[in-house]
């Protein structure tokens, strides 16, 4: 009996219930909110759900899952050494059709203009007392590109990675709520009514040459952008070359899905109470929203400039798609237009700036890495 009782006491002493802190409880609550948003509200569930579950796992005390030798300790290797964002970029490349961008290269500029929020947030973060490296990590949220945000943050300011990742993916899922008011504020009904000319067909040769040439061009100008741009273009080449169909399908399905699971759960695993429950987290989430709004505004304002320069041939709304969230931002543009003008289609035109935004954010990350790496 004594043995039974002492064994029972030992089990209770080693149980998580005793070791559960207030911070753990709060983080478990945060994970429930994220699970709710993913499952019930369908907010970016493919990423939010693994993040939420990673957060849940890591806040169960004494499990050792994140300690040296634990499962998540090894899974986190991919995020600590920036592997997952790069593999995800390959998958995005395999999923992306650069055709609309190749058909209308001028819309590439919208992808650059929509990085405005990144730099507004950098300045804002510096004013709030963050270091320049932290500010860059926070600002990149405005690019609306989760993998790039994680990549840059892991390189420059790893300690704020959980907050940045959660903010980036949360705002990406909130694109349909954040963008329409900004679009409507910066455009008139006449602007939104503009019908754009049909895009020209793009030859296979152009589609094959583009990823190769742009990798070389970006790589020579901004070497730190090579991992992201290079793998994005490699994935796209698998798609376009026509002779690697099995690899293309693997890149956009199995590889992308498996990596997404590990990325999400690793990001969640960084959300321990002591690293996440800080005033800085709230500041980062607020700055992320500012970045997102300014990025959308930057794209639409540049869209207005293009409308004037082309004498009304460009619908300025497509500038909002310059934030990278592919293809959600382009779909939002289409929805805003279709709500007022049923039968009006700008989705393909918006896809151009949308994929340009992915490249723009990766270039912005490369530029900041070049300037700020210690």
């Amino acid at each position, binding site marked *: 009996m004594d043995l039974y009782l002492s064994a029972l006491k030992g089990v209770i002493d080693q149980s998580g219930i005793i070791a559960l802190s207030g911070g753990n409880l709060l983080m478990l609550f945060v994970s429930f909110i994220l699970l709710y948003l993913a499952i019930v509200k369908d907010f970016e569930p493919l990423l939010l759900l693994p993040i939420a579950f990673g957060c849940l796992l890591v806040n169960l005390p004494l499990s050792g899952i994140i300690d040296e030798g634990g499962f998540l300790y090894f899974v986190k290797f991919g995020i600590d050494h920036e592997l997952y964002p790069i593999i995800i970029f390959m998958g995005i490349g395999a999923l992306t059709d650069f055709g609309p961008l190749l058909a209308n290269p001028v819309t590439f500029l919208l992808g650059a203009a929509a990085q405005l929020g990144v730099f507004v947030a950098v300045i804002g973060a510096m004013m709030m007392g963050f270091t320049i490296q932290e500010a860059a990590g926070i600002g990149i949220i405005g690019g609306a590109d989760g993998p790039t945000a994680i990549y840059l943050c892991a390189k420059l300011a790893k300690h704020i990675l959980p907050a940045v990742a959660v903010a980036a993916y949360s705002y990406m899922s909130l694109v349909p709520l954040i963008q329409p008011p900004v679009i409507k504020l910066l455009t008139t009904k006449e602007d939104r009514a503009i019908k754009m000319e049909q895009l020209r067909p793009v030859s296979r040769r152009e589609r094959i040459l583009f990823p190769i040439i742009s990798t070389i061009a970006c790589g020579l100008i901004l070497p730190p952008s090579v991992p992201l741009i290079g793998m994005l273009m490699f994935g796209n080449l698998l798609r376009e070359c026509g002779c690697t169909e099995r690899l293309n399908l693997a890149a956009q399905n199995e590889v992308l899905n498996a990596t997404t699971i590990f990325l999400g759960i690793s990001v969640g695993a960084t959300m321990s109470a002591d690293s996440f429950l800080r005033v800085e987290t709230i500041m980062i989430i607020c700055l992320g929203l500012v970045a997102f709004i300014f990025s959308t505004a930057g794209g639409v304002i540049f869209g207005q400039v293009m409308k004037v320069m082309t004498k009304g041939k460009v619908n300025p709304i497509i500038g909002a798609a310059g934030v990278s969230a592919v293809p959600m931002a382009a779909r939002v543009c289409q929805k805003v237009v279709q709500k007022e003008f049923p039968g009006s289609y700008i989705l393909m035109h918006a896809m151009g700036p949308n994929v340009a935004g992915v*490249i723009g954010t990766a270039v912005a990350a490369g530029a900041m890495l070049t300037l700020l790496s210690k």
Partner: protein
Amino acid sequence: MSEVVSMSSNFTGPSGALVMSFISMSIVFLVIIGLMFVMKATNMIVTAYLANRSRKDPTGEGR
């Protein structure tokens, strides 16, 4: 071999952030404009190549 020197120490305070943001934004625009010209050039080269080929092989059997 030349040593790469970190530039981050030049960007301190909000004014440093402003300068860094301006430099980064201009790099983004320069690279994107460069890529835009690459696209235009690729289109022109491919169009010229296809036109040349169709002149040599009007039946299109060689495509």
